[in-house]
C-alpha cells in the first residue's frame, strides 16, 4: 500500500535545491532513506543516554531557539534536552512572554532572533503552516523543525512513534497499525500515517466516530473503521490519541463518557488485538477517556519508552539537519 501521490504547487520546502533535507516540517514527502537515516542515527543516541557523561560536542557553538506558541511539556523539554546534550546553546521562548503577544508578526519575531545569529528554530504554533512559513522565509539561513503546527503535522512525534514500533514490535513492513480516536484534529495522526506509509506499513487503520474521522482520510490510503472491535482485530500496534475536551463544545461528541464507551482502550478490549500488541500514546493522556489506567500502566503500554525515544530522535534530527547546514560536524 502506498500513499496516493499528490502533485503540489511547488517543491517540497523541506528539501533544498540540491535535494538535501534542510528543515523538518512534515513526514509527508520525506524520502525513505532520510527517514531511515534519522531512525538509525537515533539508535546510536539511545546508547549515549545510558552513559554517565551524556553529552556530545556535535552542536557546540550553535544556538537553537525553542519558539513555542502553544503549551508543551514533553516536546519542549525533550527538544531542549536534546539540543543541550548535543552541546548547543538553547533559548526557550514561550508565546505568553514573547512580543507576538504585543502584535509582532511571526516573521518579525524570527528575524529579530536571526539578528542574534541563531542557527535553528524548533517551532510550535497553533496554526497549520506556521513552520512552512518560517522555513520559506529563512531558506538556507537557519534550520527549522516543526514541533507541531495546528492540525497539520508533528513530525518528530511520528518519528519517535515509528522508532518505538520498529524497536519494540519489529519491522514495520510486517505490522498492522491502528490509530484510534480524534483523527480529524490530530497532527500526530497525520504525521504517523505518512511516516508509516513511507516505511512500508502493510496496513494502517484509523478508528473513531464519523464526526472525528472524515471520509477523505481514505485518500491517504488508510483503512477507516468506526467500530473499535472490528478495527482492533489482528492489530499489532495501537496508537491512541489524546481527545481534546473542546470537541464536546463543537458537538462532535455527545460526551466524554460516550466516547469512552465506544472507543476507550480497556484491558478487555485490548484482547481484540494481537496478543502483546503495543499501546502507544503521544501524551498528555486523559485517563478514563481514551485510555483506561490499567492499559496506560499495563505491560503492553510503551508510553514512557516513547518519551525516552523522543529524546534520541530529536537529537538525531538536530544532528542531521545541522550537518546538512554544511558544518560537517555530524555525529560520529
Amino acid at each position, binding site marked *: 500500500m502506498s500513499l496516493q501521490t*499528490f502533485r*503540489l504547487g511547488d517543491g517540497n520546502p523541506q528539501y533544498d535545491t540540491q535535494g538535501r533535507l534542510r528543515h523538518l516540517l512534515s513526514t*509527508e514527502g520525506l524520502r525513505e532513506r532520510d527517514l531511515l537515516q534519522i531512525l538509525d542515527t537515533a539508535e546510536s543516541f539511545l546508547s549515549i543516554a545510558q552513559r554517565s557523561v551524556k553529552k556530545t560536542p556535535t552542536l557546540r557553538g550553535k544556538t537553537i531557539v525553542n519558539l513555542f506558541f502553544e503549551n508543551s511539556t514533553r516536546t519542549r523539554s525533550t527538544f531542549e534536552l536534546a539540543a543541550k546534550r548535543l552541546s548547543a546553546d538553547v533559548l526557550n521562548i514561550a508565546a505568553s512572554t514573547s512580543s507576538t503577544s504585543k502584535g509582532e*508578526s511571526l516573521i518579525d519575531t524570527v528575524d529579530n532572533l536571526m539578528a542574534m545569529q541563531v542557527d535553528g528554530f524548533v517551532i510550535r504554533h497553533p496554526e*497549520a*503552516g*506556521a513552520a512552512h512559513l518560517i522555513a520559506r522565509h529563512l531558506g538556507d539561513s537557519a534550520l527549522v523543525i516543526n514541533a507541531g503546527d*495546528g*492540525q497539520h503535522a508533528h513530525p518528530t512525534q511520528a518519528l519517535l512513534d515509528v522508532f518505538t514500533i520498529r524497536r519494540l514490535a519489529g519491522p514495520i513492513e510486517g505490522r498492522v497499525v491502528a490509530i484510534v480516536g480524534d483523527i480529524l484534529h490530530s497532527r500526530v495522526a497525520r504525521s504517523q500515517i505518512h511516516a508509516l506509509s513511507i516505511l512500508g506499513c502493510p496496513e494502517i487503520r484509523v478508528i473513531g466516530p464519523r464526526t472525528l474521522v472524515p471520509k477523505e*482520510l481514505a485518500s491517504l490510503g488508510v483503512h477507516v473503521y468506526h467500530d473499535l472491535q472490528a478495527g482492533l482485530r489482528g492489530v499489532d500496534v495501537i496508537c491512541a490519541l489524546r481527545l481534546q475536551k473542546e470537541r464536546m463544545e463543537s458537538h462532535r461528541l455527545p460526551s466524554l463518557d460516550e466516547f469512552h464507551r465506544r472507543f476507550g482502550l480497556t484491558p478487555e478490549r485490548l484482547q481484540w488485538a494481537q496478543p502483546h500488541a503495543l499501546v502507544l500514546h503521544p501524551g498528555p493522556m486523559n485517563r478514563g477517556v481514551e485510555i483506561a489506567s490499567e492499559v496506560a500502566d499495563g505491560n503492553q503500554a510503551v508510553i514512557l519508552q516513547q518519551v525516552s525515544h523522543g529524546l534520541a530522535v530529536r537529537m538525531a534530527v538536530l544532528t542531521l539537519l545541522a550537518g546538512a547546514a554544511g558544518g560537517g560536524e555530524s555525529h560520529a
Partner: protein
Amino acid sequence: MRRIIRNVRVLDPVDGFDAITDLGIEDGKITTRGPVPRDFQAEEILDATGLVACPGFIESSFQGHSPGHGRDGDLASELRAAVAGGVTRVVLRPDTQPVADTPAVLQEQRLTAESLGLARVHVSGALSMGLQGQALTEMAALQEAGALVFSQAKEPIRNAALLRLALSYAADLGCPVLLHPEDADLAAQGVMNESGLSMRLGLPGRSATAELVGIQRDLAVAALSDCPVFFPQLSTAAAIAAVQTARQRGEAVHCGVSIHHLLLTEQDVGYFNVHAKVLPPLRSLAERDALRRAVAAGEVAAISSDHCPWGIDREGMTFIQAPFGISAVEWLLPLTLRLVDDGLITLMDALKLLSSGPAEALGLPPPTLQVGGAADICLFDPEAGFTLNPVSGASRGRNLPYAQWDLRGRVRYTLVGGRVVYRG
C-alpha cells in the same frame, strides 16, 4: 473632443460585429462604426493597427477598500489597476470599513470616484445593516445615494425569514441583489476547499455542499419575492445547475464565476500558498472542469476577477490568518484569454462574459460600440505576450497566484466616455 481610432478590429458582442474598420468618437459617444466621413475633424487619431477594440469590461465585484485605511489600496490605486485592465465600469463591494450601509458612505465613495475620473463607479448598498443579516438597511435612501444594487458581499444571511423580507423590500426598488450563497454553519471557519488536501494540510475545510445548500435555500426564498438575484461567484457545477433550473422556471436569476475558479484548483494552495486563498474556495480539478463546461455551454452570465487587493503588510501571515481575496482586475483580460486559447470559448464569447453578460446581470444596458453608445472602449493587442510580474501592477495588492504566468493580451488604451484614461 473628437477622436478617430483607425484600422482596428472592432468586436462587439451585442450584435456580433467583427471587422477591421474605424471608430469615430465625439462628445463621449460613438458616432461612427465603419469608415469615418472625410469631414470628421478629429483632434486625435489613434492608429490601432493590430489592436482589437471592444466595449470596456464590467467588474461586478470590486473591493476598493474605500472608505478604509489605504494600506491595502484605495479607489485611486485600484481604479488605476482597473483601467489598466480595460475595465471601464466597476461595482464596489459594500464590505468596506465602515460598511456601505448608510447614504454617507455611498456619497463619499461616489465623490471620490468622480474626482478621480478613471473608470465609472457604481456603488452598492449593503442589503442588511453591517452585512450582519439582522436588520434591513434604508434601501430607498441608499438608492437615492446612488446604489445600483444591494449586496451581501461575502456574507450569507443566516436567517431565511430576514432574507425573504430583504429581497421583497429590494424588489420594490427594482434593484438586483447580489448574494453569496453559502450555508454559514456548514461553511463554518473553513479556509479552503474541504477535501483530502485540506485534511492533509490540517486546514479547516469549506465544503462544496455548503454552497449547494446555500444556493438552494436562496433560490427557494428568492422565488417568493420578485427580486432579480445575481450570484456573482459560484464555485460548483451543482450550484450553476440549480440556477439554470430556476431560470428555466422563468425566475430572474443570473450567475457568474471568477476567473480564478476557471484557471486554478485547490492544488494551487500547495504548501499553504496564501495567495490562493479566496472565497468561495478553489475547488477540485473535476469541479473546475465542470465549471469550464458550464461556461462553454453558456450557463454563466459573467466572468469576474473578484478583485480584492491586500497590501504588503499582509504578507507573512499564516494561511489561517491571511484574508480571503485575489488582486487581479488588471489581468482579467489576459487571464480570460487563456480560456480562448484552451478552445473553451471564442474571443467574442470571452468579451461578452466580461461586458454585456455582467451588464445584464446587474440590470445595466449592454455596453456596445454601435453608433450612439458611450465610448467606453478597451483597445488591446491580442498577440502581445508577457510574463506576469505582480510588482509591475498598478494595484496596491500583491496577492495573486499568477506570478510568472506567461499570458497574452495587453491593454493599450482604455477610454471612458471618449477620454483616454489609460495608455499602456
